[in-house]
């Protein structure tokens, strides 16, 4: 009996023993494989490649960053990538709001789990396939949108900036709907009743009561839509035509000039971290 109780007693008296036992394998993996790789990449960003030999030159330099930030073409890319990410975030919010309001405030409780499942399902459909679907939608001559607009003698947006914005909006929309829905569902009915008792119409209640209260949820959703858009490159390849984003620069340069690619790759990460630091104040991180 003593032999079997000893380990349990030991680990209950010394919880750190169990913590170490439980954590060592997964932490070794995440720290060595993942953090180690990220750190190596970050260090590489400050190295260069010898133009003649193609070998890594392991001396600290800011050359990659200065090359990036002095080249107008790259500055254009970063501005374009940011504007795409902002447009996608705003569009996601505009589209998510009616759906979330419908789910949280109009649909009956019985239907809510089904509606959540309906919003979640496309998230699990293959990312690549969803982008491919938009290639079929946006195809300039024989696409679904071109076909829909044909009777009005309008032409569709085709592949390009608008195509990227629409496709990314499609990809990340569920990430905005779900937190906003959760925020709206938590809203106490009494506050809304109070607002209407005081004479506010639906529009006024929405602006002055609903939006301020679900703001942290909106910001939480925007973290996903903004940062996922910022790092994307496959969408631009498939529906972007000649339009490129930051990710495309990384993807095309990493084979021959890894340090430069590493430097470019840190830019979206830094922007996302700055954004996260900014939204911490909105209390949005508790909603993630």
């Amino acid at each position: 009996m003593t032999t079997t109780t000893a380990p349990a007693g030991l680990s209950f008296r010394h919880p750190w023993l169990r913590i170490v036992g439980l954590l060592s394998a997964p932490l070794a993996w995440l720290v060595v494989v993942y953090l180690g790789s990220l750190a190596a990449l970050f260090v590489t960003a400050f190295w260069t490649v010898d133009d003649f030999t193609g070998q890594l030159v392991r001396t600290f330099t800011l050359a990659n960053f200065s090359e990036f930030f002095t080249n107008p073409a790259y500055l254009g890319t970063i501005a374009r990538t940011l504007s795409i990410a902002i447009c996608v975030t705003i569009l996601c919010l505009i589209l998510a709001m009616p759906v979330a309001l419908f789910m949280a405030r109009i649909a009956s409780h019985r239907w809510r789990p089904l509606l959540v499942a309906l919003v979640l399902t496309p998230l699990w459909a293959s990312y690549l396939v969803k982008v491919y679907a938009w290639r079929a939608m946006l195809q300039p001559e024989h696409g679904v949108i071109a076909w829909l607009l044909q009777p009005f003698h309008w032409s569709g947006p085709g592949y390009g900036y608008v195509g990227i914005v629409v496709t990314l909006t499609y990809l990340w929309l569920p990430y905005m709907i779900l937190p906003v829905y959760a925020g709206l569902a938590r809203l106490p009915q009494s506050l809304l009743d109070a607002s209407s008792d005081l004479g506010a119409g639906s529009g006024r209640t929405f602006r002055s009561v609903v939006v301020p209260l679900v703001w942290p949820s909106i910001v939480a959703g925007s973290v996903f839509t903004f940062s996922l858009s910022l790092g994307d490159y496959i969408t631009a390849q498939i529906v972007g035509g000649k339009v490129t984003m930051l990710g495309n620069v990384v993807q095309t340069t990493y084979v021959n000039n890894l340090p430069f690619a590493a430097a470019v790759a840190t830019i979206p990460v830094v922007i996302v971290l700055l954004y996260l630091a900014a939204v911490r104040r909105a209390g949005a991180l508790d909603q993630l």
Partner: protein
Amino acid sequence: MTMTRGTKTLLCVLAAIVGAFIYVPLAIILINSFSVDRVLSWPPSGLTLEWWGKAFQNEGVRSALLTSIGVALLATAVALVLGTLLALALGRFDFFGRQAISLLVVLPIALPGIVTGIALNNVFTSFLGGLTLLTLIIGHATFCIVVVFNNALARIRRMGGSVQEASADLGAGAWTTFRLVTFPLMKSALVAGAILSFGLSFDEIIVTTFTAGPGITTLPIWIYQNLFRPNQAPVVNVVAALLVIISVLPIYIAQRYSNTDERGAGLL
């Protein structure tokens, strides 16, 4: 909210439009896979089952499917072990660095795929002597841990610690308690986590591009390679439809295994 009838109707209509926006592209993929056209075009000039048959006879598609399944199974196995261990540690104990660890688990899917991709690519090619099937599995397992972890953690929090304490009071050791008490209670959450992890790995394209050895083709890689080849459109359409079906099924199965308040825990 006290909404007027008009507002309610307007919201219903808008929600229906957005619902169509979400589901029409997926429907187009399914319909296109039956199209007789050899290039991507809408509307299809006729419907046929021919390409489904051709796709299943396609050697490239079949081996890519097997590779995808194999990689997803192995990555899920690793993620199951590591994710469960992490969840047990973080769900039970409060210790210094706990917040940092939960952030670290999410990082592989929170950072842009291309950052994770080239970071792993750089280390694998410099220190492991190149990319292989193993590096691909390591890459996938790294971002799969989070879904298993989230599902397991949600279950452990619901469970509380009293049953384990009771088990220890009755004289069971840590391993016996895990085997006879904790694990059976966690099993359905782990099944849900494993299914979601499988789906995540099965669909992954960006990390795969950067960590798969030469010649290793998963289904998404196969689509990506054949996407721009005009004469391959019909088979690509079928594989795309197949991927939609295979990746949408798991969520229904996973839903059956998880509790209402844990739904969606795998992702958000």
